[in-house]
């Protein structure tokens, strides 16, 4: 056995133009280089570089023991990651597609989310679970879903998502450095979006259990507030732009951290507009949007001039792809909700 070449500095140099997927690759690479306890693992993440090529090149660079092709069983992936974390590793697990996280659900809900509390804080679970999620890529069943609600309803987990390459880079680095388990939902239909990425101060400055900003105002507005996350952020921005052309002032807030949910930024925006429309891809019933609506209503009751409206998937399993454009919230559906919100006197 020979010592591997020392990995070169993989942090972003200056300003680089990257796809969202490429930014995650760079973030993983930077963390693998920075901390030899980090282990990337999952189905096809090594030699193939992942079905979306998010781990492309990492096995060549860090070796097959740091970037591990696992057998095909999601419970096995997460269950062994739990054991590794118990001995101080920081596993970064990839679930190949949203719809395949469920065989691992037991390990995530009963073990990953609870070992810290079960052990009275003695055992940490710094596990990152990366899940490409959401629709819009014309895929077959189980490849287009938005199962975030299940995880957001599970105390002990942190859940986050991202919408731009810079944000993706920051998010994955923060997730890997977090001492709590983090489910990172990656908006797969934005994987090929390009954007400038600069090395962030974030990973150094955040406390080990922080994930950075929970929410951010992307556009301020006075008539209605839109809230989106992951793939729907762009939809919200486009809708706000279209509405602006009609003389409406629409604010947009992006959620980065979905759990634990901190809604100060949203509530502050709602205090200005009095109207809130939530945009996400999951089936409406039992969605994260329900929680946001319930909580914002409680916190800003007197400010609300209309009930919080939700634009999302319908209460059906994700439809065959020829129907997905009708299922997914788009600019028109968002604007329709804006109209309905404004119709409340």
């Amino acid at each position: 056995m020979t010592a591997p070449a020392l990995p070169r500095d993989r942090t972003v140099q200056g300003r680089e133009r990257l796809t969202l997927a490429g930014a995650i690759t760079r973030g993983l690479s930077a963390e693998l280089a920075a901390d030899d306890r980090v282990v990337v693992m999952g189905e096809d993440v090594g030699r193939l570089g992942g079905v979306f090529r998010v781990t492309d090149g990492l096995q060549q660079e860090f070796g097959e023991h740091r970037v591990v092709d696992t057998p095909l069983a999601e419970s096995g992936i997460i269950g062994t990651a739990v054991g590794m974390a118990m001995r101080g590793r920081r596993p970064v697990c990839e679930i190949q597609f949203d719809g395949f996280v469920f065989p691992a659900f037991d390990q995530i809900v009963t073990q990953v989310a609870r070992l810290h509390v079960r052990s009275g804080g003695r055992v940490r679970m710094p596990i990152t679970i990366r899940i490409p999620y959401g629709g819009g890529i014309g895929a077959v069943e189980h490849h287009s879903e938005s199962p975030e609600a299940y995880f957001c309803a599970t105390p002990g987990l942190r859940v986050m998502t991202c919408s731009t390459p810079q944000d993706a880079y920051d998010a994955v680095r923060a997730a890997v450095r977090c001492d709590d388990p983090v489910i990172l939902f990656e908006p797969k239909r934005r994987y090929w979006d390009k954007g400038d990425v600069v090395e962030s101060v974030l990973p150094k400055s955040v406390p080990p259990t922080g994930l950075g900003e929970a929410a951010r105002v992307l556009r301020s507005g006075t008539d209605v507030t839109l809230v989106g996350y992951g793939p729907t952020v762009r939809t919200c921005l486009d809708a706000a732009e279209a509405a602006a052309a009609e003389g409406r002032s629409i604010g947009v807030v992006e959620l980065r951290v979905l759990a634990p949910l901190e809604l100060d930024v949203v509530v502050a925006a709602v205090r200005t507009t009095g109207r809130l429309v939530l945009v996400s891809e999951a089936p409406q019933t039992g969605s994260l949007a329900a929680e946001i609506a319930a909580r914002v209503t409680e916190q800003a009751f007197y400010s609300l001039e209309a009930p919080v409206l939700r634009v999302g998937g319908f209460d059906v399993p994700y439809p065959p792809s020829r129907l997905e454009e009708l299922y997914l919230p788009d600019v028109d559906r968002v604007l329709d909700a804006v109209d309905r919100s404004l119709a409340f006197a």
Partner: protein
Amino acid sequence: MLQLLTPEGRRVDDPDLPLHLTDDQYRAFYRDLVLVRRFDDEATALQRQGELGLWAPLRGQEAAQVGSGRALRPEDMAFPTYREHGVALCRGVDPVDILGLFRGTTLGGWSPEATGLALYTIVVGAQALHAVGYAMAIQQEQRQQEQCQLTSSSPVVAAPPAVLAYFGDGASSQGDVLESFVWAKSFDAPVVFFCTNNQFAISVPAARQLGAPLTARAEGFGIPATAVDGNDVLAVHAATTAALERARRGEGPQLIEAHTYRMGPHTTSDDPSRYRDPAELAAWEARDPLLRLRRYLEGQGLADAGFLGEVDAAAETLAAQVRAGCRAIPDPLPGAMFDHVYATEPPSLTEQRQWHEQYLASFENAPGSGGAR
């Protein structure tokens, strides 16, 4: 490893599994293999042309699928993965129906009851448990029938149907597949597990998942197992037929591991050059399942130009039908996404359906930009 036809097309016999086929039967197998390959190629082409969103090619696995698919009786039930297109053709599924899932027009495509083929299961391994449960239901039915007959003293029922459960080498790591072994043995269910070991789970070689032969694994659960040359349609057919018979006789589950090779990509989205040795592919091409049967037929004088021409023509006809049929598959109506979520639609869902109808109608009323607005 059971082999009844060598790659060179030489027929060998196995004392445990005597196989006697008529000339027509040999020819029928060849015809099946050719049609299945042609169908698969056409589907790949349709994907390249944008008619399908995705395709999971079976190239290389024709013998495993035809050999096992033809071992089934009409009353049997098979549980496929997402790659058993050849089995689907053997079961009489309309070839165009196989494409709907990949075209994005349906989540299913055919009637399991009418065809004896369950729907494709995309969640790797989940169907293995369904197969065992289905087999257990057959046992329950049988027991109830026997009880009726005991009280009414009518004659004993015929051999019951058996169940065939397909899964891949990669799937053999999934808890569901392993639990299905436990159940099958525990209830001695009339199920045959058919593992298509095509050497890869996407990019991961079978060796990473199988620390010992899969046959040994099954035997460790108390399930007898047979390894077969999966590119030998005769061996696959003989072994599967025998295992299904055994299941029908009430002697419990069995596993067949068919050693074959996926000659194409995992799906049309895959790039096997990233993980596959070209020399390995070449070695397997020499073991092509069509080639060896054709060599045998030719050696035996069973395949003259007329026969081969007829088979090719049938394949082309099939391809043309599939091409035309695929292009003619209509897009589902918008409201279809609300259909069949429940056996009886709940009011809250009907509300969403109606809202959506009106929402769409508002665009028709107000054509041009802005739609509903």
